[in-house]
């Protein structure tokens, strides 16, 4: 079932202490899509999710409307919205067994719609089978690991066959390894059952790995919504660019096509004036001698081989904050990198966001040769 949000704004508090949590937001989610809401804490992502669930009410004055398919649910109480909600800390009922937790939604249905107890039992066992927890049906939540509890919570949310599945930082409280497994498993489940899901996370890796589309939020606004690929390659603004990965900053003064910053120089085809360039760690090379286009001296302060590449931390007087460069193992060996070594950084590509919008430049061909 598709989700359509129209003019969803939200303020908390009243009078002087009234603060805006969400600017009026419009968002369309297709049936069967898995969308991630990504943003730092306080960006409004959880508020948006809770409004869709019906756990919070949007501002009344903006003509807010929430549609599930053709059904307008704006004024529908949470208990009648037919959503499944998965909480960050699982929110399992501690005094009920795993079975009773999963069955809860079915057993509280009005008597005329309620399945027979045999049907309920069969359905709960199917769900537990799906989340691979059949053998633990008689346990209490306190006897399960965090990952198991979260799977129970998911089974419980799916028991009512919701139109929409909403997940609030579903893996936030789990450790790294369990997160990985659950992420893959959720993606698999989603593809198999075809429900429409929306999940909240502050972890960019998780959002990019799991989602069909990611909505990046900050300050109560959706900054950009795109496929993970487009988002990473074509960030719509500086916030998105910075939030999606490590960034090196080069801030200086352009005069006559040359940007200077302390003893660092870089040829740029930009008008005169102050300028700030942003570079991803994989968009810089380390070389032993400066080129005519770029002379950015730096000292290696730390080296850490991580997976397929080596992360090199760099420091220099002209840097406001240390830079990070990722180099291939081959280059690492060729340059014979050591801590304290002095060398030069050569940008392959840089980005700039004058007034928040991006223009991207590849470095002049000559320097790549």
């Amino acid at each position, binding site marked *: 079932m598709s989700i359509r949000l129209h003019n969803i704004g939200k303020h908390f508090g009243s009078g002087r202490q009234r603060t805006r949590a969400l600017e009026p937001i419009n968002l369309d989610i297709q049936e069967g899509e898995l969308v991630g809401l990504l943003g730092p804490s306080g960006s409004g992502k959880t508020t948006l999710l809770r409004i869709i669930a*019906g*756990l*919070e009410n949007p501002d009344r004055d903006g003509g807010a409307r929430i549609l599930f398919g053709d059904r307008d649910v704006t004024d529908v*109480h*949470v208990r009648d919205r037919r959503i499944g909600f998965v909480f960050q800390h699982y929110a399992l009922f501690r005094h009920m067994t795993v079975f009773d937790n999963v069955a809860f939604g079915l057993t509280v249905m009005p008597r005329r719609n309620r399945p027979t107890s045999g049907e309920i039992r069969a359905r709960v066992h199917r769900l537990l089978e799906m989340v691979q927890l059949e053998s633990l049906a008689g346990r209490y939540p306190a006897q399960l690991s965090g990952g198991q509890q979260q799977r129970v919570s998911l089974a419980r949310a799916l028991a009512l066959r919701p139109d929409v599945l909403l997940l609030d930082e579903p893996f936030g409280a789990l450790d790294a390894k369990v997160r990985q497994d659950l992420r893959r498993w959720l993606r698999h489940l989603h593809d198999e059952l075809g429900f429409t899901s929306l999940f909240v996370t502050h972890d960019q890796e998780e959002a990019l790995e799991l989602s069909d589309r990611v909505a990046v939020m900050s300050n109560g606004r959706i900054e950009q919504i795109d496929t993970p690929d487009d988002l990473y390659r074509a960030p719509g603004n500086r916030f998105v660019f910075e939030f999606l990965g490590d960034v090196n900053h080069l801030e200086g003064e352009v005069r006559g096509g040359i940007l200077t910053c302390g003893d660092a120089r870089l040829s740029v085809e930009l008008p005169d004036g102050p300028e700030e360039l942003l570079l991803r760690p994989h968009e810089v090379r380390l070389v032993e001698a400066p080129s005519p286009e770029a002379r950015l001296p730096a000292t290696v302060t730390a080296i850490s081989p991580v997976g397929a590449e080596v992360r090199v931390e760099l420091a220099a007087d002209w840097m406001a904050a240390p830079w990070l460069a990722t180099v291939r193992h081959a280059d690492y060996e060729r340059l014979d990198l050591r801590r304290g070594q002095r060398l030069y950084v050569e940008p392959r590509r840089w980005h700039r966001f004058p007034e928040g919008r991006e223009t991207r430049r590849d470095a002049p061909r000559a320097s790549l040769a």
Partner: protein
Amino acid sequence: MQRIGDAPAVRRALILAAVALAALFLLLPLVAIFAQAFAQGVGVFWSNVSDHYTLRAIGLTLFITVLTIPVCLVFGVALAWLVTRFSFPGRRLLQTLIDIPFAVSPVVAGLIYLLLYGRNGWLGGWLDGHDVQLMFAWPGILMVTIFVTCPFVARELIPLMQAQGSREEEAAVTLGAPGWTLFRRVTLPNIRWALLYGVILTNARAVGEFGAVSVVSGAIRGQTNTLPLHLEQLYQDYNTVGAFASASLLALIALLTLAAKAGLEWRAARQEALA
């Protein structure tokens, strides 16, 4: 934010019911005490309060309370320190034992002291031979008052000290702090408000104890009558206004206790908000 029972009608009905019942069961009696005490005007109230026997009763009550508090304080701190800072066999038993005074009927508490120290008791007989009379005199009143009030300080301190853990004290030990310095400079600042609250509760109970004291006091007017016993006698003598004049003094202490508690809680909440 959606929570259970948030519908305005439900909310209003429940608040109204709670306030109405509390007003009827709690506030009305409180008002009645003062209304009765001043029923015949301030002058009569004053002459009742400044009556010779009333003053003697107030004096005895204060005397007993002032002696009770330090004893309970020392015991409460020692026990709390013992059961929260060390583990040893019998620790849980000790914690259960101090709840006995809460479960024992005050009359039974008075009785067991009377049986032991009274003229017929095995210790009392011996004391009587040495001309020491504990029962039907102020030492007996003091002893049963200590019995009924001794758990309060410990009960306030134990959960707090358990929650705080002993890490700070261990750090102080590694820094070479000797025992009393450690307690005074590290432990005491952390527990002082709970300690104060324990003392306030001890005070309230010590001032107002009736059942146990009435068994061991003998209720000799002007001599072994505490304020609660005194007001009982006045009430039995149909001197209602006089009884309520004394009662109002005790009610005032109760109100101060509640105010102190609310103040301490407010303080703790504010500190938590700042942290």
